[in-house]
Every structure is written in C-alpha cells, then in structure tokens.
C-alpha cells in the first residue's frame, strides 16, 4: 500500500516537474493539446494586462513565474531586463492605459516543447488606436517580435522569460536563442498524448491536436518568410513536395525557397501578421483561410505603413513530417466590390 502510494506520488511529481529545474538538464516534456491552449491563453492575456494596467500592474506581473524576466532589447544600447513582481508590475503603470485601451496586438504564436517546459515566439504590432472613434488618427506605433520561455507552475503556465525585439529589416543579425530551434515535428505524436480528449474526433474527423498542429504550421509561415534564416529552406519545408503557391504561381520546394529568399527578410524582421484562422476538415485532409496584413514597421523614427492585406486560402495535407501546405493562395483585399 505504502509502495503504491509512493509510486503514485512520485509519478505525479515527475509528470508535474519534469524539467522545471534550472540546475540540471531537464527532459523535454510532451505538450498536450491543453498545454498548447493554456500557453496560448497566457500569451493572449499579456496584451490586456499590459494595456489596461489592471490591478495596479500586478495583473501583468502575475503572468510571470516568480524569478522570471522581461527584457526590452530596444531599451538603451544593450537592452534592459526587469525581474521581480514589483519591477514587472511597474512596467504596466503610467503612460496611456485604461480598461478599454487595446494596443498590443499579438499573433503568429509558435509554441514548442523544450527542456523545462516550452518556448515560443510571437509577432506584436503595437497600435495607437484613436480614442473611441472620435476622429483621432490611428496608427501602428511600432512592433516586432517576442521570444518566450514558458514554465508550468502550480498556478498554470507562466512566462519564465519574455524578450522584445523591435522589428528591423536589412542585414541579418545573430538570431536570439529561441529562433535557433531547428525545424521539427510540429507537435507531439497524438498517440503519445496523455490526454484522451485531444484525440476525440469531431464530426469533420480533425482532432484537437490536428487543429493545433495546423495552427502551428500557419503560425510558422511569417517567420520563415520574414526572417528566413536558411535561404528559404524553412519556408519551403512548410509545404508538401508537390505544393503550389499563388501568386506568383510557384511549384515545388526548390522554387518556393528561391521565392522566399527574394522577399525582404532579416533576423528580427516582422512584416506578415496573420489573423482569423479558420480550419475545416475535408475528405483527404483540411482546408483553411486566414487574414494577412503586411505592415512595414517604421524604423529610425519613420512612421509605419500598411503594405498590403487580404487573405490566404489553403489546402493542408498530413504527411509523414506532419501537416503541410499543399496549396496556398493569396487574395488581396478589395473593398467596395459589389456584394454577391
């Protein structure tokens, strides 16, 4: 009885804290569908906490683990790091805030399991939206990338570290650590998932894990295009070997890599912001669509501008490597067209 209890307690603790120690090498955990969703929820709460300054800034501070840090790499010549609940809370005080103020627009959330928990990265557009539609001019103030490390605490997933990188076009610079992760399988094998709920098929026969893997595929697209660390290989590898991109019509991974390399890119460049990702099951895979806005974030004090916008229409295929684009078509936004 005692042994059974001991085993149960130990296994529980092992599952809980596989990898939370910073002192010793930690195994890479298997992230369940719920882990992905909870981390995503943490990432989305960030904007509300920072923009509203709720609870005198402590809503923001409480998104971090006890010893966690925020680093603004754009602050001063070598960046500035904040640690501790009070110092983090102070970041969410003062300035333009309020219960209805919405500024930090976060998207393209990529999450990966990593030793000790998970790492992630997101794009952030920081908007200054005119007050209440009263005619004040709205603008993109600035924007860039967050690189995150997440840790699972007794209270749930929290930031262990978050670093902001201002979007910078031009010559590649040394990528920050979370960007060095090589392409890998998008998520744990569903068969290994300890959460049976994540395998429950819906009527369209996509599981929660499938949805998450397709979302992760699409979220990776902007990084592969805007940062393009490897001459388009990461970009091309998001597609099946026989995939077609439009427009311009580009077929096969070699041509896709070449196309990506011809687009502006840089290690800290954030331009393609995606939103509104819809996914539907089909007989042989899935289809989906998202909105795109390409924002040219102003550099060196220049104003930002919106380069283009519209939506992608995708066909996804599940390959031995995971979900991939089979076709991807961009359709530019046209407003004022006659309603069908």
């Amino acid at each position: 009885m005692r042994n059974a209890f001991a085993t149960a307690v130990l296994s529980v603790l092992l599952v809980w804290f596989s990898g939370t120690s910073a002192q010793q090498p930690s195994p890479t955990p298997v992230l369940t569908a719920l882990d992905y969703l909870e981390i995503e929820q943490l990432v989305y709460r960030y904007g509300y906490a920072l923009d509203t300054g709720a609870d005198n800034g402590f809503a923001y501070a409480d998104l971090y683990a006890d010893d966690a840090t925020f680093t603004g790499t754009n602050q001063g010549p070598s960046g500035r790091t904040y640690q501790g609940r009070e110092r983090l809370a102070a970041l969410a005080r003062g300035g333009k805030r309020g219960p209805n103020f919405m500024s930090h627009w976060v998207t393209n959330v990529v999450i990966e399991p990593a030793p000790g928990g998970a790492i992630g990265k997101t794009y952030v557009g920081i908007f200054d939206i005119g007050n209440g539609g009263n005619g004040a001019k709205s603008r993109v103030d600035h924007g860039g990338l967050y690189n995150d490390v997440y840790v699972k605490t007794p209270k749930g997933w929290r930031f262990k570290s978050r670093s902001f990188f201002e979007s910078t076009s031009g010559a590649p610079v040394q990528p920050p650590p979370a960007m060095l992760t090589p392409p890998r399988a998008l998520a744990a094998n569903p068969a290994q998932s300890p959460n049976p709920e994540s395998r429950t098929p819906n009527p369209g026969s996509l599981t929660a894990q499938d949805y998450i893997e397709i979302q992760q595929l699409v979220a990776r697209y902007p990084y592969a295009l805007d940062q393009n660390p490897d001459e388009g290989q990461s970009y091309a590898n998001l597609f099946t070997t026989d995939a077609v991109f439009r427009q311009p019509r580009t077929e096969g991974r070699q041509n896709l890599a070449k196309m990506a390399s011809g687009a502006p890119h840089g290690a800290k460049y954030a331009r393609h912001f995606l939103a509104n990702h819809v996914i539907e099951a089909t007989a042989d895979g899935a289809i989906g669509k998202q909105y795109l806005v390409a924002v040219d974030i102003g550099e060196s004090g220049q104003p930002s501008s919106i380069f283009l916008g519209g939506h992608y229409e995708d066909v996804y295929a599940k390959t031995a490597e995971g979900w991939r684009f089979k076709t991807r078509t961009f359709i530019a936004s046209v407003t004022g067209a006659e309603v069908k």
Partner: protein
Amino acid sequence: MIVRSTRVVSIVGVGVLVMAWAAGAVSGQADPGAPRPLASVAGKPAASFTGLTPLDYVEIKQLVSRYAYAVDTGADNGNVYASLFAADGAFADRMGRETKGREALAALARRNTRGPQSAFHFIVNHVIEPTSEGAVGKEYLVQLRIGEGEKPNDIFGGGHYEDVYVKTPDGWRFKRRQFMPSEGSPRPRREPEAR
C-alpha cells in the same frame, strides 16, 4: 502533504521532491492529474475549471475566426453572420444597444459588408474562460482599410469584443457579443473587479 511526501523520500529517494518543494510546487493540489485551471484575465487562477475540453477551445476559436469573414463579406445575404449567433443571440454596440435575432443580425451584416473580397476585421488575443453555463471570451480588434482604390491603406479603428458563448446542438455560438472601442486614458485606472 509534506509529512507524507517525506515518507516517500525515504523510500524512493529523490531530489525530485526537493526540487518540487524548492519550486513551491507541493501546495495542496488535490488532484494533480486533473486539467489545470487556466489563469483568469487578471492573471490569477480561475475559480474552477468547469470542463472545457481542448476541442471546445478549438471550436470557440473557430467560431470567432469565422466572424470576421462573415461580417466583412456579408455572405449569403448576411445569413452566415447570423448563423454564428444562438437563436436568441445578440450583438451589442458600444452603447450596449442590442441587435437580436437571426433576421436582424443578417440585416446588420448586409449593412456592414465591405465586399466579398474584403478583409477589414483583424481579430487577435482571443482569451477564453469557462463558466458554469458555457464560456466567455474577449479579443482585440483592429479594423484596417486596405485596397480601397487609390486611397492609402490605413487603420480605421479598433477596440475589443466581450463575448458570451453557448454550446448549442449545432455547436458553439455567440450568445452575446459587445464591441468596445479602444480608449486610452492618460493616467492608469483600475479595472472593474468583475466582468
């Protein structure tokens, strides 16, 4: 818990426990195998996890993503937009004035469409919380004017939605959605306790 665990240490030996304690880990969680509570909007643990499955989260996310297409394109004479709401569902404007019922909602979409190929409502930061009757959520919205002839692309406005979702036989639907425009205050203000 600590007393019992000490016994375990003597049996299985383990730095794991020491590490767990050091991390403040063993803190009276009754059922560590159960789904963990999602943090509340204020970053504090939600009162309880009332049973949204991963698929529920995914389906609610899909509902919200579909909203943008439905309102921007006004597809099917506005009926696609209306079908995202429960039969008694309502959209509320910034003043709280409600548009309720399928036909009124379809008419709203017909009035607001910007064309079948338009992308105007960009919605992100989707936070979802379970409630005893379903779920609530909120998102950021930025409205972008793109592709309007010769006009330069620009930002029309933005703010956030506050949603109530209900699970119907047809799937998750909006029971109520309210838009609140973004308003910045020059001084920090305290957020109301509950929402």
